[in-house]
């Protein structure tokens, strides 16, 4: 017994070791370096020796604009996640339970297609589609000649469109996996017990697919909150996120410590939200 245990432990170590080593090296180390950086009074690349300080965190609390930007970023993340859920979940449901065989493969290809192109290229293509006189505008005018000029570029909806397009595959794929795992006999059992389609979805299918919904939401919410490229290119003067302010600290003002401090405030906010939602999510999944 003890020998088997030890062998097991060895196997687990061998199997998980490389992944955790990799994660430690690539995530934990740079992140701790940035955390340290956020307490320095000047950029680590300046020749003078740095002094430890809390002033960058104080600046975040002191300046209402950065809190405002954080709120807007969180709101943008929530809107994008919700849109992805509303659009992606029905698609995943159809892929898992209705479409079969070759068609499913073809549909999957279309879902992952956006991943094959660079995110920046995708965003610029959206700029071409959405600008006045752009592709969408021309298409509308072909169908409805007298329609008013479409002017979506440099607006909040343009940012949401770009982000939803980028992140939708995550939602479809995670929801698909958990919907696919629901045994058809469970659905048949529910039906044989008299559940109508509405009740079947509400009380059986949706709760059982919740792990996928949550995983997809987390995968989308976190990067959408930190987005800076899409808001700048598609939002113009109407795109304002904390991510853009963070980027500016690194590339324009060269105030790395302040940028790092803003990043960690954002990380803290995202973690707090996840922590607050965790008990709710666990409770919903407990009954399964």
């Amino acid at each position: 017994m003890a020998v088997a245990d030890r062998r097991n432990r060895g196997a687990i170590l061998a199997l998980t070791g490389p992944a955790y080593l990799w994660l430690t090296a690539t995530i934990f180390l740079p992140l701790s370096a940035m955390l340290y950086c956020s307490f320095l009074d000047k950029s680590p690349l300046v020749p003078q020796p740095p002094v430890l300080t809390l002033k960058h965190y104080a600046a975040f609390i002191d300046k209402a604009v950065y809190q405002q930007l954080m709120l807007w970023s969180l709101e943008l993340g929530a809107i994008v996640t919700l849109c992805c859920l509303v659009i992606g979940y029905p698609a995943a449901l159809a892929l898992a339970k209705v479409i079969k065989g070759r068609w499913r493969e073809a549909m999957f290809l279309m879902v992952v297609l956006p991943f094959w192109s660079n995110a920046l290229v995708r965003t610029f293509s959206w700029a071409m589609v959405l600008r006045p006189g752009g592709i969408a505008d021309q298409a509308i005018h072909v169908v409805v000649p007298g329609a008013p000029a479409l002017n979506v570029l440099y607006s909040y909806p343009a940012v949401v469109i770009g982000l939803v397009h980028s992140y939708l595959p995550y939602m479809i794929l995670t929801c698909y996996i958990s919907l696919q795992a629901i045994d058809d006999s469970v659905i048949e059992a529910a039906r044989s017990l008299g559940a109508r389609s509405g009740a079947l979805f509400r009380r059986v299918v949706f709760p059982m697919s919740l792990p996928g919904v949550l995983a997809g939401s987390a995968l989308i919410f976190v990067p959408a909150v930190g987005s800076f490229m899409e808001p700048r290119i598609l939002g113009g003067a109407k795109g304002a996120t904390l991510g853009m302010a963070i980027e500016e600290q690194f590339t324009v003002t060269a105030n790395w410590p302040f940028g790092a401090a803003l990043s960690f405030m954002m990380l803290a906010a995202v973690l707090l939200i996840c922590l607050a939602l965790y008990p709710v999510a666990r409770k919903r999944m407990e009954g399964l």
Partner: protein
Amino acid sequence: MSKLNSRISRRRFVAGAGAVGLGVLAAPRIVRAQDGKITVLNWQGYGTDEKWALEAFKKATGIEVVHDYFNSEPEMITKLRTNPGAYDVVLTNSAWNGVASGEGLVDAIDTSQISHFGDLNPSLRDSSLLSKDGKVYGVSWVWGMTAIAYNTEKFNPAPDSVEVLWDPKNAKRVSVRDDAIEGVSYGAIATGQDMNHPKDLDKVKAKLLGLKPQIATLWSSEDEWNKLFQSGTFDVSVYWSGSAARSKNNFKLPVGYMVPKEGGIGWFDGLAVASNAPNSSGAHEFIDYMIDPTFYVEWATKIGAPASANTKANEALPADDVGRQIHADQAAIKRLQFMAPLSDEERQAYSDLWTEVKAEFAK
């Protein structure tokens, strides 16, 4: 001469490599230290990387030029700090040359190696912004203005005041660059303050917030500016003089350009030699070529360039050259304030202010 140099140094290099044996393999940087090549750090597409020019330069000197690029001046400084010995020539403007020389990131120029040095406009060449302790740390290369470009089909008569940006008639027809320092500078000019170090930042902020109903969008690159202007997204914008010449010349856009009577931003760029440059003499040769009228005239007429710091180069331009006309208005040049070095605190304060202004624009 330079070919001879390069041969000697290569021989010396080979001898040294033999002496240290495998040690060379452990220090690949030494391999770069040969006279046949220089590395230039500059903005992309900003003169030094014109293909025809590099071919001509290589033909004349045997020196191959490779490039690395930066997207902002702090990035340029960061690259110099973190890669000592990687660069030979680096572009530093009037606001950043002092920072670079103060930190010992660039070397004093041996002006005797720059044959065209005497032809440079003295007010730029001898500016304290490019020198320190009587030594020159940057060879003035080109200069330009950041002033106001307008659509000549929409404005008649031409505007002459910075207030054109705030004129309610131009609501949603105005653009400015998404840049904290440019924004604050124009806020200061419009409120009658020192552009580099405005005393009353609150006044600047209030003035900039007043732009909100005017702003159609913010621009960030010349290419974007041309597209936006062409599609009629805005009619009047803060813009760079060299870019205005290009927009008019190459894209035939109806661009007018003026320095407001209240003042405008002036800047000039200096080419500097990085300290620990692997090929300092090659760097000097390249800088000399960059201020040569032959290079400048071709650059300015074929591609479009800011004004040269070399008076002879400007005089060699055709009289009807758009860039020459834009940069020849002596009264306008007198109204310019030149960009000076800012402290880290000032840069952060301007960045915070601009972030607040942009957040208000986004509401």
